């Protein structure tokens, strides 16, 4: 169904429910949907599972959501950073669950969810502790691990521009997890710097077609 243009981040995240799995874009702060996360904090949903490459930087964005105690579990590839003190503290105190996923598996498992792939075999992680307990198979002489899709109830994405149909373009390396998360969630919410008229984005350069986008808000 067509994307809806929201007047505020608060309107955009109004329907997020307690216990949801929330995919949050960004690699560090590049592409992090800070205004949507701030609105989610005001909205109050709790008991969340958050899927994001990192586990928050400094005290804003995802780190602020974590600090409020709203996140039950993080699924990410690289929680430990120089400025990830909020996550570090919660983890050491046993107040947050962590599922560590190799970054490529994180991306590919969300792609699988979006692309209707039931499961896939990958050599990434084979023979390491992160594949423990998973089904394995030798294919062409190489050990592979079976990985399952990661689906979100909601995706929160920071992008550059949208048109009124919800077509999205990103900027430089802030693109990162946005496009794949947009495909993997039941409801995809995108904050952009600017909403332009239909026809103003180059059809050859649209990265996330409006089909994947449920709500757009300019911030």
């Amino acid at each position, binding site marked *: 169904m067509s994307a809806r243009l929201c007047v505020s981040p608060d309107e955009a995240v109004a329907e997020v429910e307690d216990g949801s799995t929330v995919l949050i874009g960004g690699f560090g702060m590049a592409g992090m949907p800070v205004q949507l996360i701030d609105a989610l904090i005001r909205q109050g949903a709790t008991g969340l599972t958050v899927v994001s490459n990192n586990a928050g930087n400094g005290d804003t964005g995802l780190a602020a959501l974590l600090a409020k105690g709203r996140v039950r579990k993080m699924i990410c590839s690289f929680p430990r950073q120089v400025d990830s003190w909020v996550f570090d503290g919660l983890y050491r105190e046993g107040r947050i669950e962590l599922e560590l996923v190799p970054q490529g598996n994180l991306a590919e498992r969300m792609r699988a969810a979006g692309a*209707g792939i039931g499961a896939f075999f990958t050599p990434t992680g084979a023979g390491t502790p992160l594949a423990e307990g998973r089904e394995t198979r030798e294919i062409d002489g190489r050990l592979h691990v079976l990985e399952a899709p990661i689906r979100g109830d909601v995706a929160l994405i920071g992008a550059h521009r949208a048109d009124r149909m919800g077509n999205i373009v990103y900027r430089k390396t802030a693109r990162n997890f946005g496009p794949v998360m947009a*495909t993997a969630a039941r409801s995809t919410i995108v904050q952009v710097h600017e909403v332009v008229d239909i026809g103003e984005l180059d059809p050859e350069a649209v990265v996330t077609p409006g089909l994947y986008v449920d709500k757009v808000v300019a911030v």
Partner: protein
Amino acid sequence: MSGLTKDEIAALVARDIPPGSYVNLGIGLPTQVADHLVDGSGVVLHTENGMLVMGPRPAEGEHDPDLTNAGKQPVTELPGASYFDSAASFAMMRGGHLDVCVLGAFQVSATGDLANWHTGAADAIPAVGGAMDLAIGARSVFVMMTLFAKDGSPKLVPECTYPLTGVACVTRVYSDLAVFDLVGGEAIVRETFGTTYDDLERRLDVPLRDGTRAPDPPHPSKEIR
């Protein structure tokens, strides 16, 4: 007693596509549905060779060989269009992101099995294209077909005898004589054209239910994700 023409069936399908839907129209007869979509309905057409917001056939002399639909016919681009490669296009279809697809059929079973790619004839050259991906991927799979084959045999059947395209995937059948919702192994007759429920019950060998007096036909869809 006379049923709908093919064009009237196409108009009926177009009427039932909810505003704002993302829709794929299969090659052949379903392509005609586009002619009946009302401007401003916001219905967006997808073509599996890699485009969203596909427009109608171009004016004579303005064919662009790089811009075709899945039937390799020339089409146009509407504002808001986007292009993508075949893997991305099929990911869209297979991932359950299309609201509706409309396909032709040789046979449909009461449980929603679809046969539309191969008659099984020994000398036929088989070709499947994107039919199997659409059948399993779209949230609602509408079939357009005549209800009876030229030899008089019904095409809505207890079990398909032609090779399958997909299992339990069709949600609704639009035919010249009636519209059926396929739910739980039953075909619910929603509307009839030039015939009656009782007549259909005599001529078809599938579990039927009379839904002609139900108000607004709902839009059945599989919950894919």
